[in-house]
């Protein structure tokens, strides 16, 4: 009895101890591989009319400045009309792929209203995403250009009829008292080609400024008046001088109800004669974060 006990004591501890090492290696190794593959989310396909600057394995998908996916493959669709871009999403970003999610390619852009995507000059183009709210989806149509920021697209759209486009371009400002409260979204000929239709969007806090009797006019460019008593040059903001612009005002008197979404207006070629004197009182809800928002009671802004 004693002899067998002894042999067990000398042998037993030495053998299994070493075999912890391969077990540990197996655990760590499989954890490494699992971690890598668990990070893989779903694969989605986005159709673009043009995928210039997008390359497999290089272009990434960014959301709020964070990389959430990588382009796996770029190829021409079978009908040769669109480009299909396959993107592998990260696991934690899988919820971004929903119906209504919008994708677009960010290139550097330099315009009068700002410079954007400047970093892509060096890093190359990337895909941007604006998540939708629908059920999960895996096939999308990419946008030609970036959609308007979400808080702006919530405003109200109006249709303006004009007999000519003038110098109005997409993105041109819509101004109220020479303050930008919206922008031009699109312009096209009417069906019978007798008019130009311009769709403008007024941002959320200012939508109530547009009443059913509001007057719109083309505020772009310069207006020159030469007379016996001298010359007068009228120009709105610099931005609308180059990009064209639209201004509006509401006549005094009884306040008409706010205009509905997609309401139609006539776009005048110049401001109504006494438009600058119109001063109907219309409450607007400026966002609380605005720098000049009214001080709430109890707060003392200045120490006298």
């Amino acid at each position: 009895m004693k002899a067998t006990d002894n042999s067990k004591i000398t042998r037993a501890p030495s053998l299994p101890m070493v075999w912890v090492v391969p077990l540990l290696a197996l655990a760590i190794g499989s954890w490494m591989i699992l971690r890598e593959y668990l990070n893989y989310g779903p694969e989605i396909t986005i159709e673009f009319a043009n995928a210039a600057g997008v390359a497999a394995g290089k272009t990434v998908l960014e959301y709020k400045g964070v990389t959430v996916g990588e382009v796996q493959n770029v190829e021409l669709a079978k009908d040769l009309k669109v480009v299909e871009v396959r993107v592998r999403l990260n696991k934690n970003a899988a919820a971004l792929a929903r119906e209504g999610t919008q994708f677009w390619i960010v290139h550097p852009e330099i315009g009068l209203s700002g410079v954007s995507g400047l970093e892509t000059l060096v890093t190359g183009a990337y895909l941007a995403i604006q998540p939708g709210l629908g059920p999960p989806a895996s096939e999308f149509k990419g946008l030609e250009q970036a959609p308007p920021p979400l808080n702006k697209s919530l405003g109200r759209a109006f249709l303006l009829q004009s007999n000519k486009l003038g110098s109005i371009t997409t993105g041109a400002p819509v101004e109220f008292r020479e303050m930008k409260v919206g922008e031009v979204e699109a312009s096209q000929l009417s069906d019978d080609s007798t008019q130009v239709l311009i769709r403008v969007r007024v941002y959320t806090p200012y939508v109530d400024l547009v009443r059913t009797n509001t007057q719109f006019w083309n505020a772009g460019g310069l207006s020159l008046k030469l007379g016996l008593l001298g010359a007068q040059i009228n120009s709105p903001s610099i931005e609308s001088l180059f990009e064209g612009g639209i201004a509006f005002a509401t006549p005094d008197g009884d306040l008409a109800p706010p205009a509905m979404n997609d309401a139609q207006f006539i776009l005048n070629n110049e401001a109504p004669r006494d438009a600058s004197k119109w001063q109907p009182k219309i409450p607007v809800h400026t966002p609380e974060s605005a720098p000049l928002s009214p001080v709430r009671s109890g707060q003392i802004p200045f120490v006298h």
Partner: protein
Amino acid sequence: MRINQSASRKENLSRASALALAAAIMLVPANLLPVLYTQNAGKIRTDTIFSGIVGLCQEGWWVLGVIVFIASILIPLLKLLGLAWLIIVAQRGPDGLARPLTRLYVVLSIIGRWSMLDVFLVTFLSGVVQFGILAKAEPRIGIVAFAAAVVLTVMATEAFDPRVLWGHPTGAKSPSSVT
């Protein structure tokens, strides 16, 4: 006395084979997972060891590609296979191959240290190439597995006592008298 000898011989072999098995396991993530992330003027790459070699050859760096292939894929693999052979032969007991196998063991223990080339390459690049948005190199998890595999192989080679090839009862005599 007899029991003790075979026990220590077994212990020696089982330590070597355990470490060799651990090294073999670590070689799997080392070769599957990316080892290096590089970003160079907008070109982003995440390379595994093999894709790095293919990339080097495609860019025309044939010699470098072959060196990395030999140091990072061929040598670790051959080393483990050689070690496995030694362990299997030793397990069966001494035979006529003792002399050439001992020579193989010496070769294995010499070339072991050279397979760290990849680890050095990655750490060197990550340390030197840090130019923010223009060029950047970062290590990836695979290089840790690779380093672990190399270290475990070296440890397994060290743990293997070539005297067992000669049927020598290791541990029975003081080691200094043999080496």
